[in-house]
């Protein structure tokens, strides 16, 4: 350990210094830790309530005191989502279709553009990249009116195309992929070129396979965002057969009112499931994708 007791006349002995530096938990740090633990309860409580309520039979949904662990196992709520007139299964299929299409499209367009910005030299590359980044601050509500007119001109209102096409690419994804491809050494690309590989082959066979972690991050984030998206479906979809889960379930919850709170919570539970699974399986990819842009950018 380095010692720095210079001009101080009452310099502490080395032994004392060691003691103070090892004392890593002063009083207020303990307070902080306790507060952080206590505040975690309200973070989790809404999910616990959602789960216990989704397993209650209707009349008991608002029983007090609230139960934070399941008191009954009324799985009927989940079954009735699929058995009643509620087109919940249709919503799920629609959400899945849109989310998969958008994710596949973004993985392709964002990795192509990200690779080009990182490893190809072409005119105005910097200006185009800067221009793309401006869309990160563009509220969707500013562009949605003309987009609505475009879609209605193309006769695409109330089709899934109307919510897929505007999301075919995404500046965040381009940025994420560019950051990743920048970490690939230029020599690697050069070596492949000297070996006679075509530019397309270098991208498809060399760079892209190495980009799997970044593609996983982008894929999960894009899927989650699209799966959760409410605004675009609200603007563009109006028939029950076309609706996605967020749009359909929210509309239905308003129709039902609070009488069917258990069934509504069952629906929310099902809708949250894919996100929970992603989180448990690929927490690291999600975090690195979301945080990478903050810290490196």
């Amino acid at each position, binding site marked *: 350990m380095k010692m720095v007791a210079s001009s101080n006349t009452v310099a502490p002995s080395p032994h004392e210094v060691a003691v103070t530096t090892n004392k890593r938990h002063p009083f207020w740090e303990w307070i*902080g830790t306790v507060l952080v633990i206590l505040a975690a309860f*309200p973070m989790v409580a809404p999910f616990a309530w959602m789960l216990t309520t989704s397993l209650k039979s209707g009349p008991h949904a608002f029983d007090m005191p609230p139960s934070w662990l399941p008191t009954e196992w009324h799985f009927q709520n989940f079954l009735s989502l699929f058995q009643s007139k509620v087109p919940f299964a249709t919503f799920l299929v629609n959400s899945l279709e849109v989310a998969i299409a958008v994710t596949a499209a973004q993985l392709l*367009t964002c990795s192509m553009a990200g690779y080009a910005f990182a490893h190809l030299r072409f005119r105005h590359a910097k200006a185009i990249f800067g221009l793309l980044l401006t869309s990160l601050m563009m*509220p969707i*509500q500013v562009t949605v009116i003309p987009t609505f007119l475009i879609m209605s001109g193309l006769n695409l209102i109330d089709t899934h195309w109307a919510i897929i096409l505007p999301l075919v690419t995404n500046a965040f994804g381009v940025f994420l992929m560019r950051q990743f491809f920048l970490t690939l050494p230029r020599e690697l690309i050069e070596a492949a070129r000297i070996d006679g590989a075509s530019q397309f082959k270098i991208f498809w066979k060399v760079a892209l396979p190495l980009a799997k972690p970044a593609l996983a991050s982008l894929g999960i984030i894009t899927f989650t965002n699209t799966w959760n998206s409410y605004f675009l479906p609200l603007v563009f979809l109006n028939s029950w057969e076309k609706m996605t889960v*967020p749009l359909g379930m929210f509309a239905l919850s308003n129709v039902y009112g609070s009488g069917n709170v258990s069934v509504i919570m069952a629906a929310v539970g099902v809708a949250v499931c894919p996100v929970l699974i992603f989180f448990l399986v690929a927490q690291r990819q999600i975090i690195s994708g979301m945080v990478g842009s903050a810290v490196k950018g």
Partner: protein
Amino acid sequence: MKKTSSETLLGYLYVGPTLSGYLLFVLGPLIAAILLSFTHYDMMSPPRLIGFSNYARLFSDARLAVVYKNTALFAVMAVVLTVGIGTLLGIALNKRLPGFLKYILRTAYFFPVLVGMIYAAMVWKFLFNRDLGVVNYYLHFFNLPPIPWLTSTAWAIWSVILVYGWKNVGFTMLTTLAGLQNISEELYEAARIDGAKSHAVLFRIIIPLLSPVILFNMTITMINTLQEFDSIVALTNGGPGDASRTVVMYIYDKAFRSFDMGYASAIAVTLFVVISIFTVLQLWAGRRWVHHS
């Protein structure tokens, strides 16, 4: 020479899909929105040029003033709540806690970030119910009167702010944790050996070195709150009256309920200008104040 031009062609080929998506769905619509803002357009008859009438109307629209005031309150308080608490959480969780406890806490704070806002708000809508809600049950438990969280003009916007903070605080926490990882352990050691007090370490070392992350979080939160739509629609639907209505909800109502596309575009243009100003200001503040090591 030939190689350069072929690489340019290839570059445009790779960027092409993204660039055309941007032109069709971002830049094009932005320009179209600016043009539409000078017209009267109800989707029945073709757009009619009316000059600056829509912009003149902005100034006499009492509802617009209300929704802008709500939006400003929402944005400022959400930034204070999310960035303030999230940064402190990140700092608190960066300590030597048992690995398992750390993982549980990080997960608890981060998970809501991934859950769709519309779902989170549907749950909170029941929790905030005045008579049957869990929140008021616990207030009653402590002998406090029930609060009409979503149904009173005084409380509605604050409920929305709370839910926004609850859902997004984990993102700030996580970026803060990542930022702290870049501060070397030796710096703390050196400060402690020099006899620096804990609060001096916090204000003189941690916060200055975290300033790029804090500014990033403020920028992101500001941009996101100015466009927040889902939580407000689900919790209060802008009500009661206009008490929790924000600019983006007002744009939606004008455009897709009243089909007043021209006027809605004019409001959208003002929002775009406001966001641009904030972005430039924050870039400028970043150059001036942020500590770059």
